[in-house]
């Protein structure tokens, strides 16, 4: 892990993971924590507008306490391990903001086929509300915190079957329908926020690679991609792409 921390030149950073109960998100949280990140989380199940607001408030409070205590340490000339250092030379590790917002997918989505009955219809509406609307509310409430962070990155965990071009499945309808809508949501958000310095990632889980999906995703989410001024038009940071565990592009 120390090697990874060096590889990514990581300061202590903070992430918020929404939908933290999914297998993939549990792994992502584990990875980030191992790499020394502060990770805040909120479950998808049972989440309400109120709980989202409270979570945002908690992150804000926590980060300001952290910042303050770090400021004090730096002023004292000691680091967290009690070693002396020159405060001028030490980079402040935690900014008072979130670096990464991760939006997980719901791996418990029922395998609803073409709407069979009224109950299936109601379930589809309920899940759309629970995922799409709650996600947008999380983004809405977390944006001020992300604005203050140093990374400004929003990441989606999705599935490769959310691709309209290459979905061959005939069973898990609801998951694919919501997945495709989430890809559109991410694209509109990128159009809106990229001019403000935001970057985006969409990770496409594939059934075959489920076991280690979170590890691949975590790495993909924190890696930067080239942004050469000469190639800006086609830079990976200027167009939104869904990628699988091997970094391959999945078409929309």
């Amino acid at each position, binding site marked *: 892990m120390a090697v990874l921390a060096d590889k990514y030149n990581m300061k202590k950073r903070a992430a918020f993971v929404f939908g933290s109960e999914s297998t993939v998100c549990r792994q992502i949280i584990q990875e980030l924590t191992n790499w020394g990140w502060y990770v805040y989380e909120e479950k998808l199940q049972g989440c309400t507008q109120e709980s989202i607001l409270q979570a945002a408030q908690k992150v804000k409070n926590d980060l300001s306490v952290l910042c303050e205590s770090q400021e004090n340490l730096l002023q004292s000339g000691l680091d967290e391990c009690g070693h002396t250092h020159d405060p001028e030379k030490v980079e402040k590790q935690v900014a008072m903001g979130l670096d990464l917002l991760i939006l997980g997918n719901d791996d418990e989505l029922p395998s609803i086929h*073409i*709407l*069979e009955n*009224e109950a299936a*219809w109601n379930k*589809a*509406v309920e899940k*759309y*509300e629970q995922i*799409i*609307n709650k996600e*947008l*509310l999380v*983004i*809405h409430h977390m*944006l001020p915190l992300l604005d203050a962070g140093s990374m400004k990155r929003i990441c989606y965990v999705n599935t490769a079957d*959310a691709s*309209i*071009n290459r*979905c*061959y*499945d*005939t069973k898990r*309808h609801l998951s*694919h*329908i*919501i*997945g*495709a*809508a*989430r*890809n*559109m*949501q991410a*694209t*509109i*958000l990128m*159009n*809106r926020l990229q001019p403000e310095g935001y970057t985006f990632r969409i990770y496409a889980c594939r059934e075959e690679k489920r076991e280690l999906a979170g590890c691949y995703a975590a790495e993909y989410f924190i890696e930067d991609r080239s942004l050469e001024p000469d190639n800006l038009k086609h830079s990976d940071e200027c167009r939104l792409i869904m990628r699988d565990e091997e970094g391959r592009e999945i*078409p*929309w």
Partner: protein
Amino acid sequence: MKTVVITGADRGLGYSLCEEFIKLGYMVFAGQFMPEWTQLEQLKESYQEQLQIIPLNVSDFQSVKAAMDEITKCTDCVDCFISNAGIVSREKDIREEVNTEGNLSTFQVNSLGALLMTKALLPLMEKGDKRLCYVSSEAGSISVAHRDGMYGYCMSKTALNMIIRLLHNELFPQGYTFRIYHPGWLKSYMTGAKNEKAMLEPEESARMAALQFVGNRANEEVLKVTDVEGKIWPF
């Protein structure tokens, strides 16, 4: 006589599609959502035999069921289904507000409504031409998405495109063929009053749509979004 079911037929593109299909000699079942709007009734006066007005809210289970009962009384075969009903929701910037209600209602009408109607009509379509047509929009295309807002409408049309893909996966092997149509920017009523600033009269778009909806293609297995000029839009 061939038969077609058209949703959201009161005005705009849906109404013009009714006129086009009447001209093509079809028996038209026109989904009426707003009985207070009299255009369809006037059309019925001229085409008593070719037009059946069916009360229909595509986002209401009971209404769809009642509409199916009405259609079944008149015919045992539907050749073509046109999912046209659509709504748009007003939205503010993501930093200001999230229109959760608007997101849900657009999903219910634009996406699930199309699926619900398709599902309900399948038994009647078994013996017919098996043509399924969906009015989608460039707003649902992720590859060329240029908006920085309108989440609800855009997501609902992307969800619709995925629904069509899923239907295609299942129904194309059973002989069904599909059309996904982007009608252009229409002088229609999506924002409440007729939008005179837009580019195309619904009649013009409906004329081109009807040609694409009834015509056959060499590669029916290819699912694609086409516009008024027959040009292809990516997903």
